């Protein structure tokens, strides 16, 4: 029977892989004259964690910010090529950027809760998108989001207190709760643990693993251990190009490219 199952896997291998959620084709990004991303082709699969690794300034954050068009905010930034979310070009003029950002949430490097109460932090997204009309409905979303972010038990007695009064790790989980409160399809994380201590980092990583069940996650990280721990697929960026992309296990155990090997073994970067 093992033979049969192997042939089944070979024949239907594609079907076993998750559907492609975000597909980028020939993406180039320019900051003024600077060519920051060069012909990036990268697929993000649904319900997987895709890690973007690479040395500083290699364009991984730039790529991440293309996915929810945060680069629009940067003066002189130009994006060419196509990025499709469920086969819809997100740079299409017909697509509303506000709607896009409701579908693709983001968690930033530095925990950035609003200087408001914990409740209001999480409730802000649902409020502006009109996801909940009544009080109890909104409360349910907030509680559910905080539960999903693994923060509810720690803050349930002080939802009215300032979100900025939490510890760094709690703040970051609050930001994750805030992001998932609008039920996005994809969550982008830009070095979410770089400002956290190891214990808080472990909690956030655990959370990322749980979130994978319901969300598609793209994470930029400087920690290769983190990429290895939380992601299923890894893309290695170098000088604005994707050098190698593959299953995380393969990238870390059997890198195909010399640069990847050099980076993951710590010879540069």
């Amino acid at each position: 029977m093992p033979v049969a199952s192997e042939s089944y896997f070979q024949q239907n291998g594609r079907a076993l892989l998750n559907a492609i959620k975000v597909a980028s084709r020939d993406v180039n990004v320019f900051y003024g004259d600077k060519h920051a991303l060069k012909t990036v082709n990268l697929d993000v699969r649904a319900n997987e964690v895709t890690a973007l690794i690479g040395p500083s300034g290699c364009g991984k954050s730039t790529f991440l910010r293309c996915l929810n068009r945060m680069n629009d905010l940067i003066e002189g930034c130009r994006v060419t090529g196509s990025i499709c979310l469920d086969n819809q070009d997100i740079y299409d003029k017909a697509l509303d950027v506000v709607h896009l950002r409701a579908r693709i949430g983001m968690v930033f490097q530095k925990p950035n809760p609003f200087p408001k109460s914990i409740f209001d932090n999480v409730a802000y997204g649902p409020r502006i998108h009109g996801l909940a009309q009544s009080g109890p409905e909104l409360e349910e979303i907030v509680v559910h989001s905080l539960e999903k972010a693994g923060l509810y038990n720690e803050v349930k007695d002080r939802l009215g207190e300032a979100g900025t009064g939490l510890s760094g790790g709690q703040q970051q989980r609050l930001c994750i709760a805030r992001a998932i409160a609008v039920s996005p399809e994809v969550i982008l994380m830009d070095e979410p643990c770089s400002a956290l201590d190891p214990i808080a980092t472990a909690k956030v990583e655990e959370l990322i693993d749980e979130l994978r069940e319901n969300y598609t996650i793209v994470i930029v990280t400087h920690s290769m251990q983190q990429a290895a721990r939380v992601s299923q697929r890894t893309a290695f960026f170098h000088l604005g190009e994707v050098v190698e992309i593959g299953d995380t296990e393969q990238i870390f155990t059997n890198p195909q490219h010399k640069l990847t090997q050099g980076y993951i073994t710590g010879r540069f970067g």
Partner: protein
Amino acid sequence: MSSGNTEKNMTEMVEQIRVSAVAEKVEARLKSRYAVEKRFRFFGMASIAVALGFLAILMVSIISKGATAFVQSEIALTVNFDASVIDPDGTRVKATLSAADYGALVRKAMFERFPDATDRAAKRELVSLASQGSDLVLRQAVLDNPSIIGTTQTLWIPASAPVDQLIKGHMTRDAANGGQFSDRQLSWIDQLRATHVLTTHFNTRLFTNGDSRQPELAGLGGAMVGSFYSLVITLLLSFPLGVATAIYLEEFAAKNRWTDVVEVNINNLAAVPSIVFGLLGLEMFLNVFGLPRSAPFVGGLALTLVSLPTIIIASRVALKAVPPWIREAALGLGASKLQMVTHHVLPLAMPGILTGTIIGMARAIGESAPLLMIGMVAFIVDIPATPMDPATALPVQIYLWAASPERAFVERTSAAIIVLLLFLAVMNATAIYLRKKFERRW
């Protein structure tokens, strides 16, 4: 072996000498470095001391000159409200009551108080002790309560400005040294003083009356109301306009050469002499739009021009100080740009914006030049009822009184300055309070 040792010792010694030489040099430099620091601190302290000294001199001079203006000498006069003088027909019609000859009642009461004034000259001298506006006090009393007609009442009427100045010690009794009083007058004054019917009271007229040619009747009421109207107009116009401009320039406008030009021009406008804004106001508001002269409404428009650049610049700085990650967080959740501004950036920038606004308002309340240009420098007795009525403003009133020749206006000028400074102090304290109250940490 031994030569090797010696060599080693030698290099060690050389090294030691080098190290100690470096230490010596550093030490020598250290002394002069500390000396420089000490000198700098000394100069800092000295300049602060000089500044405080000047401030103290200013305050002492203004307060010592102006304090006496807050009291006013008044004479208790027993007046017979003779119905045949006030209202001969007994109709009690307001027009009749207003037009009655109350001066005659005052004069009669004075002659009854001092029967020794018999000839015309003595009578004139006696009457001149009371303010020429004493009849107004009587008229007001009758209008407030017409039932006193026909009765005899004791009223405090203002003493004339020279009497007031004499009692306050600003004028000498000695006629040879510039005193204005005859011996007869001095004896009457002394008699009144001795029976405690000529004393100083808190000067409510200073705050309720409009301007007057009689110093003892001149008040800041009209100027304060005029300043208030102007300031309300200025605030209503410049706060929303200034904040909206700042938000647009800071958050929405494309960063290109045009925005740069606008920015440079706004910064330059903040440094434009205010009289230029006054000229602009004169040309635009009075000549082109045909708005009334001397009106606080137009004053408010002119002061809006003065305070707008300050408010815009302060608001832009406050908006810039809001950390960018607040914006990213809001936009990342799918907030529109305007939602990002109104929900997050503006509340965080509010303390700075309010501070800037109040500083702009403080500048506006102290401005006189633009108001001179649009005619708010006229002699206006009536307190304006609406912003379209003619009025003056506090700084202009100070200017007008300072130019008046009467001795009694000297103390009133200082008193007006004190009132203006109090307004400014209250406004600045409000600014500090608001900043502390709304300041949020993140």
